[in-house]
């Protein structure tokens, strides 16, 4: 009996995947665990692995096609084994044999499944009604949750901590990207279908700025002493390798400030607020056609060097789109830094269900009153976006004050 290879949900939010490349081909021997193909999910390019031993006897989905999660993409079986049809769930009326007594129709030639094919849910998840409701409301994919109830039943406690993502209907396949600059080609515009990641960004950010009541707090921070500290540290690190950036210092300061202001280290959960006792900082990283927020876990407990190394590693993986789901989910607060783009200040959209994000502008010299004189100092504008359902004005302001104190006097981080 041949085994179906399904399009698997390779990220918490994935509803469909684009088959980028087959790494095994029809006729190749495969072992369980072997990589069969590379699949572009809404977040990254992931590997689809074999779940059975045998020969890849049939490839159903050609490279470049996008198929819903659960659809059959290939078959693994014994050499020479025949498989019935293409395995995809076709509309019932499509080619129903008029005379049932006839032999089954011959295997159809390989065809790319079209968008009209209904997603076939390959795996039924057993979950309590409550767990299903919570998952539905929070946008948790139950397929990715480990059930702790009898027979693997997903129960309330299993979904409460699960990664959150919003889901909506599927859309057509991803194709070429728009060129970055305007060219007078005679065609007034070019319609570019949304890539998987662009779709996810659209869904998630629309789900944020719409229902989440944002408000914004801006403060200007004197970065002279942070700059001095950074210079001194980097002088020492020159010999050991690995430099510390302002971003690392800011992430560390945000994490430590959150430790003192748990009211801002929280998730809004519809009927409750989850205050986190761990500090996981999401770090917005711009990538070629979007952005993603890899997570520096327990950033409050890590040294600047550790944060720096981790941030570089995660940003690199993000740009090559090799982040694993566990590397970009579960943050409790986020930092978005546009300092390198000469931005004075900006407001960032909250990454739900988090309750806050700080937007970091560019450190620039400014003339500031200094007693009777005016001196030029390195100044940084930081804007915090708060979810008013969780954080009130004074709460956010108190957090920002602590953050400001830490950055203006880096020794305060040692307190």
């Amino acid at each position: 009996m041949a085994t179906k290879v399904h399009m698997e949900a390779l990220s918490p939010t994935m509803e469909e995947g684009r088959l980028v490349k087959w790494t095994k081909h029809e006729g190749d021997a495969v072992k369980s665990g072997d990589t069969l193909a590379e699949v572009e999910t809404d977040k990254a390019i992931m590997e689809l692995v074999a779940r059975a031993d045998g020969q890849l006897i049939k490839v159903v989905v050609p490279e470049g096609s996008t198929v819903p999660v659960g659809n059959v993409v290939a078959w693994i079986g014994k050499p020479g084994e025949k498989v019935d049809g293409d395995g995809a769930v076709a509309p019932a009326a499509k080619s129903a044999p008029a005379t049932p007594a006839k032999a089954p129709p011959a295997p159809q030639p390989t065809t790319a499944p079209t968008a009209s094919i209904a997603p076939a849910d390959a795996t039924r998840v057993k979950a309590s009604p409550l767990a299903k409701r919570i998952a539905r409301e929070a946008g948790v994919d139950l397929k990715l949750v480990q059930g702790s109830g009898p027979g693997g039943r997903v129960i309330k406690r299993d979904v409460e901590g699960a990664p959150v993502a919003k889901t909506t209907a599927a859309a057509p396949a991803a194709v070429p990207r728009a060129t970055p600059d305007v060219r007078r080609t005679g065609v007034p515009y070019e319609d570019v279908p949304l890539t998987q990641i662009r779709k996810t960004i659209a869904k998630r950010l629309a789900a944020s700025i719409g229902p989440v009541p944002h408000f914004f707090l801006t403060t200007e921070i004197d970065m002279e002493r942070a700059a001095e500290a950074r210079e001194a540290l980097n002088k020492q690190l020159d010999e050991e390798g690995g430099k510390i950036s302002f971003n690392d210092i800011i992430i560390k300061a945000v994490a430590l400030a959150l430790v003192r202001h748990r009211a801002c280290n929280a998730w809004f959960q519809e009927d409750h607020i989850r205050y986190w006792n761990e500090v996981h900082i999401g770090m917005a990283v711009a990538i070629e056609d979007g952005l993603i927020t890899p997570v520096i876990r327990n950033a409050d407990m890590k040294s600047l060097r550790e944060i720096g190394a981790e941030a570089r590693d995660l940003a690199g993986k993000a740009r090559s789109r090799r982040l694993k789901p566990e590397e970009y989910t579960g943050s409790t607060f986020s930092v978005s830094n546009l300092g390198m783009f000469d931005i004075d200040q900006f407001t960032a959209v909250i990454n739900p269900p988090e309750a806050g994000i700080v937007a970091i502008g560019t450190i620039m010299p400014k003339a500031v009153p200094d007693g009777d004189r005016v001196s030029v100092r390195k100044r940084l504008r930081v804007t915090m976006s708060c979810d008013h359902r969780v954080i009130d004005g004074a709460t956010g302001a108190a957090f920002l004050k602590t953050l400001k104190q830490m950055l203006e006097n880096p020794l305060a981080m040692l307190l």
Partner: protein
Amino acid sequence: MATLTYRDALNQALREEMQRDPNVFLMGEEVGVYQGAYKVSRGLLEEFGPQRVVDTPIAELGFAGIGVGAAMGGLRPVIEFMTWNFAVLALDQIVNSAAKMLYMSGGQIPMPIVFRGPNGAALQLSSQHSQAWESWLSHIPGLKVVAPATPADAKGLLKSAIRDNNPVIVLEGEMLYNLKGDVPDSEHIVPIGRADIKREGSDVTLVCHSKTLSVAVKAAEQLAEQNVSAEVLDLRSLRPLDEAAILESVTKTNRAVVVEEGWPHSGIGAQIVDLIQRDAFDELDAPVLRVTQADVPMPYNKVLERAAKASPEKVVAAARRVLYLE
């Protein structure tokens, strides 16, 4: 607030209602001269005389029928059965006459009658005298059924029952008559159809009534030692059921265990489970479990009898299962 036994709380309710309304009268075996098999009617013959406190022969169908006739004629009879095990003989009058009269007279003949007496098992009375009849009685449209668990509820519900213009079944308990509790001094009425949270909790709802209240409360105490917060919901009325209270509690706790004295098959708990799964489906984190009497005639043997009854240990075990702690 006075501390009264369940027995005296019922006695107060009867006395106050008989003082209040001359149409109210009590009838049954040994209710007069002997002052009641369980002394619920103590002093009533002396105060109200033989016209209103009527001793009957051992003929349940007969005096239940006289009660129905009296209610048709405009009186408000309270019919005492020595136990509900004996009242089975009177079921034809209760089910076919009392419960149907208003309906079959096209709304012309109300039936303000109360049938009351001890229900369920006491101690070692064996299988014929240890039965819980609530699922039989609450099955019948046209009857209201209440099962108070505390002296205050006994007084308040019996008064509501006597004032109700429909036949009301009051299920008491031989093992409850000596139970003491605070009863408000002034006019104390408990509306029919209203459940009561006897203990608040957040992790699991223990639904109970009558004697199983004490079982549920003990279970909740044991669960508290295991850091489980159990809510104890006393139904008080079995028909009509306080569906909103049950759903509200289950919505809060997401889990329920239903405890009852009767047998499992077609029991009260089955009705509660039906309600919860239908109207609180999306709130449930686990199947609702039931703790009932074992599905056998009640044994006479003391050890077997104890084993057959619902117990705090069984409730704790069921609660731990719905909490996935087992």
